[in-house]
């Protein structure tokens, strides 16, 4: 009996240990997860945590002292430059390891390994887009460059030094939640991270949607709906700038009219589109316009807002340079920031550098495809996708001279593509390039010549590279390695049976539009079309104009500018798009056709001050009215169409109506009468009323509550995220803060003798949700406030701002 009881209780004990260690029956292994000595409690960092440490690593060549300030920003002082990157890697890992690794797993198409088959579509698409292939190509270019190789080797070694010091207990909490452990870092992972940025910033195309639109509209209609240039365009390089004739003679293929511009059907579209509004503002004003007489450089990149943040603030000081700014956990160096001589920043170029070609295979085996009248052999790349809790999936991807065949019979994205046709993707990010060098060179830059030299290394993603120096120089270059395209090339899916539709070359460095110390005293960019129509190369159609327009208008007006003025400009909530659109509603919405309640909201709209402030009710009424108006104009044209048919930009509709109030799309084709703008504007407003009234009843009419900006944890866990932030702004507004997207780093640098620098990002330096430094900048950011950035000098180590010191040495 006792033996039986013993065996029973022993079995229960074993069973409990097994059950509480496993994820098979419980969503979480409660034993290991709740164990105070091993589980998540170990991530509950004491609020008075002491970050000071003395660390020894044989890889180091000299001594490195790191002073952590009261915001947990590290000030890294290294005797040898390579050591600075080792320590940067160590710090990135110490504070952001899980995020760094997840980002590269996502980039490589390996998310299913840790997240399960919910990520399978993502992984297949990323493999088929050639992300690992692109990273391998770039890795070769990075490692062929001695400087980058040393930088990356030291950086990877620093990350791995930290990973090796980890125990089960000290793993970041997300590993404990998901049940995996970190892999060693490698230079390949850094290359993958950079490709992720290319995916995010250089995927600006809608070739399938545009092809579909071309097929359903007449040529005349198409040109009205998708004009190459907006009326409100104030280009980065001012209108009237003369451009040299193109050095690359562009030959439009002979078959273009019959095979390309003509109507044919395409059915495939990419599932994972990065946010269309990934963009940014940057500008620099010359000393002639500032109160101090010194230039001021400003930048705020608009990206998806996440926790932990994409950015990590750092100062790196070595015998060869001293730079401060934000870095990417995943890559060495300072990305946006300033040094002792100059400041630098970026906005996205938004050029179309990704095109699709329709491939004709000989047969189902895909072994050969038609190219220039011959059957050419296909290369194959077998992608093995590991899936958590499931067998591996093998995906065989065909590679052609154009690039990988993304869509084919085996990959239709749940029927999105027909599976009959095959489309290869050509993407400039597949090229071997070494973007780390631009940051390396900018970190070291002393003057305009150094900046020019740095810009040569930027290929993909193309960026508007902004520069200002203490000697008074300001400059901007619309930089990148952009294909030299003929008019219309790459707007649609192209025939892939011969070489005539291939890109015919890349725009040379000398023909990149730029501005250097322009007379108007400022340079700026906000993702608008970089040049007017006189530039000889084709640049595509869908650049947003309003933000660039309002920034330039303000900068023209401003004089005696201070850093404070620039912060006010970056956080300005004035809605210039509404300024342009309101005359339509003012003139054409007929109050007599509304009931009393409708007239009340119309009055509220008409008396709105055009600012998307937190408490602005008019801003929400405007947004809903515009949305409803846009829909009522196009509802008939797009009735019954797939959602994969491109729709015109908001500014296109607005500008067309401002030009011509009888714009042909105003008429509702479904009715016999001919509608006027009076009908449509009133219909638009009346259509929005129901939603507006609902919002009012739910107290969600004030813009801030309606927009409900949130910064989400990368796993979308509400408990680790911040919701309902009181912040204004939005699309087309300089403060481009939308619901989950917006200014991811605001920076203002005044390059006077004594540099004055300000910055803030919506996050915190520590990636651990159990740390008080996890999200401590968010409220400050939402208020529109900035931190003073401290370029520390080594002698200041007794300054009260220094809270902790980490010393690294090899002995």
């Amino acid at each position, binding site marked *: 009996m*006792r*033996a039986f*009881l*013993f065996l029973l*209780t*022993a079995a*229960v*004990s074993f069973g*409990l*240990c097994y059950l*509480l*260690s496993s994820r098979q029956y419980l969503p*979480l292994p*409660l*034993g*290991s997860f*709740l*164990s*105070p*000595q*091993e*589980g*998540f*409690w*170990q*991530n*509950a*960092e*004491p*609020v*008075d945590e002491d970050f000071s440490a003395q660390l020894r690593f044989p890889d180091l060549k000299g001594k490195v002292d790191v002073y952590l300030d009261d915001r947990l920003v590290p000030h890294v002082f290294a005797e040898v430059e390579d050591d600075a990157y080792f320590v940067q890697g160590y710090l990135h890992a110490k504070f952001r390891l899980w995020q760094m690794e997840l980002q590269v797993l996502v980039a490589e198409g390996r998310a299913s390994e840790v997240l399960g088959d919910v990520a399978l579509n993502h992984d297949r698409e990323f493999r088929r887009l050639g992300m690992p292939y692109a990273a391998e190509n770039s890795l070769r270019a990075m490692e062929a460059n001695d400087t980058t190789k040393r930088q990356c080797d030291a950086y990877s070694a620093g990350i791995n030094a930290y990973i090796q010091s980890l125990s*089960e207990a000290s793993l970041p*909490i997300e590993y404990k939640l998901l049940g995996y452990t970190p892999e060693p870092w490698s230079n390949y992972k850094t290359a993958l991270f950079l490709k992720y940025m290319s995916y995010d910033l250089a995927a600006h195309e809608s070739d399938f949607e545009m092809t579909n639109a071309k097929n359903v509209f007449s040529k005349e209609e198409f040109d009205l709906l998708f004009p190459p240039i907006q009326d409100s365009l104030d280009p980065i390089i001012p209108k009237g700038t003369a451009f040299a004739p193109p050095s690359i003679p562009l030959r439009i293929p002979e078959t273009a009219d019959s095979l390309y511009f003509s109507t044919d059907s395409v059915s495939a579209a990419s599932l994972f589109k990065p946010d269309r509004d990934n963009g940014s503002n940057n500008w620099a004003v010359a000393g002639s316009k500032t109160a101090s007489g010194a230039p001021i450089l400003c930048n705020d990149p608009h990206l998806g807002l996440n926790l932990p943040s994409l950015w990590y603030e750092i100062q790196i000081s070595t015998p060869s340079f001293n730079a401060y700014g934000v870095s990417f956990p995943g890559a060495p160096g300072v990305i946006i920031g300033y040094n002792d001589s100059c400041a630098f920043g970026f906005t996205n170029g938004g050029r179309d550098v990704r095109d699709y070609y329709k491939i004709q295979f000989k047969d189902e085996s895909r072994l050969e495809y038609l190219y220039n009248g011959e059957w050419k052999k296909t290369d194959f790349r077998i992608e093995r996708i590991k899936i958590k809790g499931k067998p591996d999936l093998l995906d065989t991807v065909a590679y052609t001279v154009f690039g990988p065949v993304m869509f084919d019979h085996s990959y239709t994205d749940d029927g999105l593509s027909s599976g009959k046709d095959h489309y290869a993707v050509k993407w400039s990010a597949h090229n071997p390039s070494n973007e780390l060098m631009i940051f390396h060179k900018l970190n070291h830059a002393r003057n305009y010549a150094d900046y020019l030299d740095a810009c040569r290394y930027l290929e993909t993603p193309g960026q508007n590279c902004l520069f200002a120096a203490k000697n008074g120089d300001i400059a901007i270059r619309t930089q990148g390695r952009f294909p030299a395209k003929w008019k219309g090339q790459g707007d649609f899916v192209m025939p892939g049976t011969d070489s005539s539709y291939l890109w015919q070359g890349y725009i040379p460095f000398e023909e990149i539009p730029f501005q250097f110390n322009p007379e108007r005293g400022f340079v700026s960019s906000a993702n608008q079309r970089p040049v007017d129509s006189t530039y000889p190369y084709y640049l595509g159609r869908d650049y947003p104009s309003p933000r660039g327009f309002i920034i330039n208008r303000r900068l023209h007006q401003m004089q005696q500018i201070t850093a404070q003025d620039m912060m006010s400009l970056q956080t300005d909530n004035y809605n210039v798009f509404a300024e342009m659109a309101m005359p339509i509603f003012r003139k054409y919405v007929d109050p007599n056709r509304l009931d009393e309640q409708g007239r009340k909201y119309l009055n509220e709209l008409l008396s709105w001050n055009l600012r998307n402030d937190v408490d602005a009710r008019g801003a929400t009424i405007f947004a809903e009215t515009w949305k409803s108006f846009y829909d009522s104009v196009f509802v008939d044209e797009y009735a019954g169409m797939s959602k994969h048919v491109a729709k015109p930009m908001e500014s296109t509709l607005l500008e067309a109506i401002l030009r011509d109030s009888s714009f042909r799309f105003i008429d509702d084709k479904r009715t016999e009468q001919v509608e006027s703008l009076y009908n449509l504007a009133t219909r638009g407003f009346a259509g929005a009323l129901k939603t507006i009234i609902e919002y009012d009843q739910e107290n969600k009419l004030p813009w801030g509550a309606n927009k409900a900006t949130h910064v989400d944890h990368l796993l979308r*866990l*509400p*408990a*680790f995220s911040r919701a309902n932030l009181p912040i204004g702004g939005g699309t087309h507004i300089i403060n481009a803060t939308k619901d989950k997207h917006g200014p991811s780093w605001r920076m203002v640098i005044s390059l006077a003798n004594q540099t004055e620098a300000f910055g803030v990002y919506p996050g915190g330096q520590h990636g651990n*949700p*159990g*740390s*008080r430094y*996890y999200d401590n900048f968010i409220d400050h950011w939402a208020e529109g406030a900035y931190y003073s950035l401290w370029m520390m000098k080594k002698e200041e180590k007794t300054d009260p701002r220094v809270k902790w010191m980490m010393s690294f040495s090899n002995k």
Partner: protein
Amino acid sequence: MKFFVSLLLMAALSFALGLFLPWWSIAIACFLVALTIRIKPGGAFLAGFLALFLLWGWLSFYISQQNDHVLANKVSMLVLKKKNPNMLMLLTGAIGALVGGFSALSGSLLRSMFKKA
């Protein structure tokens, strides 16, 4: 008296093993103590149960209050769907207690088998 000695030893050994071994070393600790010190099976269960309830409960409380309960607030939202750090500490204690109790009980039963033989 033996009961309290066992309880203290179980808690102490669990903590010590936990410094080097995975979380389930608490089962070894309770089993070994109950095997060594003679105590009735019912008492052994209670000793193991209380030892781990107190150890894990107190450790989690100690860690969490140094953290101002920042993480416990978040994880309780995640696990219990409500902001309640105390519940999370109770749950932590209860999970440890369950494992501690059963392994102490089996240790005590094994000991009593040898005694009989």
